[in-house]
């Protein structure tokens, strides 16, 4: 009886957005009298930070700091339609809608600034700090605060914009399955290292090294929180979780966190995250949706590592100590 070590690898891809498309999202953007910008949506923030990312996307597009953007979302009386937050679609779909709306608002803002500065709007640029200036002559500038006041009270212009993003729906061909499921795919490769106690069947995941290609890390800290969380969930799926431990038998289902097993802090592996960025052709600033895929590659990587450690294949999830011991017993008997 011994502690045995093994490692396994898995490589995957994952589509962004609802399978087969047909899932629209809209956004509205308008300026307040003092040059702050409100983004109105009906998208839902599940805790992943959707509101923050929409603020950064709007800020980048308009050309103001992120703290000048207010996100007003998920009130159906005011927010235009969003299909919902699922299918790794939030950032991609809503982000594109916000960019379109913000571009329209930015154009009006530049036109008002051009009138104030008596130049052509096409000669203007934003400095990202809250000012609009003439390209090549930054001393000739006006603050966005003043532009918004002018638009509201002097020139009667609405600094606002509308945004809509829709991937047209694809219908699978009945006999061949020819279809267009998605327009962009995120990628990952994970290497997991485990120890398996061949006396108890206990698995300890020592390290998980995840390489994720996500198009564009719009906010690297938030990317990190989502990818690390996903990686933990993948380990949890591999080794712990089910509502029906003896599926298809319906008995013994957990009804609280004492019975429904998930890893605690002490069960989590040393987790390494490396991010690559190949911008997608139709993503906001190239971003893809990594929300779902980041929890997938750890499951087979851990399964393969268990085999590498003790030489038995567990092809049924979750890979519990009971299943490992039964497989080891069967292996010894044969």
């Amino acid at each position: 009886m011994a502690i045995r070590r093994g490692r396994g690898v898995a490589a995957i891809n994952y589509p962004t957005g609802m399978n087969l498309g047909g899932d629209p999202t809209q956004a509205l953007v308008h300026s307040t009298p003092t040059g702050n910008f409100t983004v109105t949506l009906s998208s839902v923030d599940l805790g992943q930070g959707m509101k923050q990312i929409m603020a950064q996307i709007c800020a980048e597009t308009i050309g103001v700091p992120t703290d000048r953007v207010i996100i007003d979302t998920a009130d159906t009386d005011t927010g235009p339609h969003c299909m919902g937050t699922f299918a790794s679609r939030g950032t991609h779909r809503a982000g594109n809608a916000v960019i379109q709306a913000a571009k329209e608002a930015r154009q009006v803002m530049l036109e008002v600034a051009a009138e104030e500065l008596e130049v052509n709007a096409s000669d203007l640029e934003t400095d990202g700090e809250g000012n609009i200036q003439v390209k090549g002559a930054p001393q000739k500038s006006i603050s966005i605060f003043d532009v918004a006041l002018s638009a509201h009270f002097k020139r009667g212009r609405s600094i606002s914009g509308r945004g809509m993003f829709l991937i047209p729906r694809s219908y699978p061909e009945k006999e061949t399955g020819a279809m267009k499921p998605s327009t962009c795919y995120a990628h990952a490769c994970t290497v997991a290292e485990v120890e398996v106690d061949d006396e108890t069947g206990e698995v300890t995941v020592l390290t998980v090294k995840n390489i994720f290609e996500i198009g564009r890390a719009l906010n690297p800290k938030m990317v990190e929180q989502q990818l690390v969380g996903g990686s933990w969930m993948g380990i949890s799926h591999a080794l712990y979780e089910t509502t029906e431990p003896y599926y298809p038998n319906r008995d013994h289902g957990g009804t609280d966190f004492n019975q429904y097993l998930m890893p605690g802090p002490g069960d989590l592996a040393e987790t390494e995250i490396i991010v690559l960025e190949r911008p997608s052709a139709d993503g906001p600033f190239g971003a893809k949706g990594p929300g779902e895929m980041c929890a997938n590659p750890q499951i087979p990587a851990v399964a393969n590592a268990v085999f590498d450690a003790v030489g038995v294949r567990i092809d049924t999830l979750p890979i519990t100590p009971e299943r490992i011991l039964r497989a080891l017993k069967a292996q010894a008997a044969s």
Partner: protein
Amino acid sequence: MELRKNYFADVRKDGLHEIGQPRPRLDSPGHVTGKTAYFADRNFPGMLHLKMVRSPHHHARIRSIDTSEAEKHPGVARVLTAKDVPHNVYTILILIQIGPEDETVLADGKVRWKGEAVVAVLAETERAAQEAAAKVKVDYEVLPAVFDMEEALKPGAPLVNEHHGQNYYLYDSGECRKVRFGDVEAGFAMADHILEQSYQSSPIEHAPTETTGCVVAPEGNDRFTCYTNTQAMFFTLDNTSIILQMPGSKLHFVGGTVGGGFGGKVDVIVEPIAILAAKLTGRPVSFIYSREEEMQVSSPRAAEKVVIKDGVMKDGRIVARKVTGYTDAGAYSRHSPYGAQKGAAHYPGPYTIPNVWIDTYCVYTNRTPSSAMRGFGVTIGDFALEVQMDKLARLIGMDPLEFRFINAYRDGDMKAHRQPTEGAALIECMQEASRAANWPVAEKYMAMSSYRKGA
């Protein structure tokens, strides 16, 4: 976390002002100090609490329901049964034309899974609602149930759901969603080795911090405001409008700040019945799942069975792959026909294989309906595919990572569903994994690229 900017630098514009910057989240201080308001923080004078009477049986006919004792229980305001629901038989994907309507808001004549909602009790307190629910008498005639997908597909198996007429979802392509590419039998005939393996998973819970729920307030203008943690505002509003036969203009949904979803809050379960209760009583209503309901009643990730048959050459090329996937929908469709279909679009994984045959089935059984969950249609498929890849590599005596390089898709490669590959990056992920994990592969693989000239 590290960003490896050396990859794909030629196609990326860095140096933006706000994008790519690690700005602190504006909502974090509220979350960590307990100041963020969630739906359950709404409390209204006179608010009623809704509790469900649920089926104790996996499959049973309802002979009769007696709510008289429950109605007399102190604090009870109203008891609702199927006849109170205007459009009781519904299905949520009807909004994207995926029918038939196959599920009841409150059971009518039959229950098809243990935990199915039968009677809704509204009372002044949660305790009174719970106590009154226990006094509802339902007379059941227990029917044979089926839990195993293979058993369910056999002739003579108990019929789970009459709205389908058979124990699988009928696609326009027939009993399964199909993908056919090349000639899979010819591929098997030329292969040096054939490996057929079967993989299985069990249902999995979303385990959000905040359980599913909503609080509804009737407004003075004949409208209803629903504070909800749904993941999809208008999807829920529009389905509620159908179920309650109420114009959408009467409905006002407020949400957007949710304590974890993972797909578990894409079903439309709590809002329609809570709004109906508010309408019939004229009072605010709260309907929030207990942790037990969240774990055993709300939809889990579907159990799946995946059978993969591969033909592989000694040099590492996979020449044929046949995948048969089964998704255990439980008793009702919810999002499972969509999930099974997504699986058909995902196989054979991120590999270029000339001969592919895919069938994915959505199967009905007498268990808690499964539905959306992070990656559904793909997550379990990836487990099966990537364990299969490991087995194939070992079968032909090849390094598992090198074996994946040989088969990895690259720009321009035709996928089984007949879309050319665009924006591939699998090879680069594996190259970086080789470095990061100190798992060396031959130099020719480290020199590969997802780009193809002219692609």
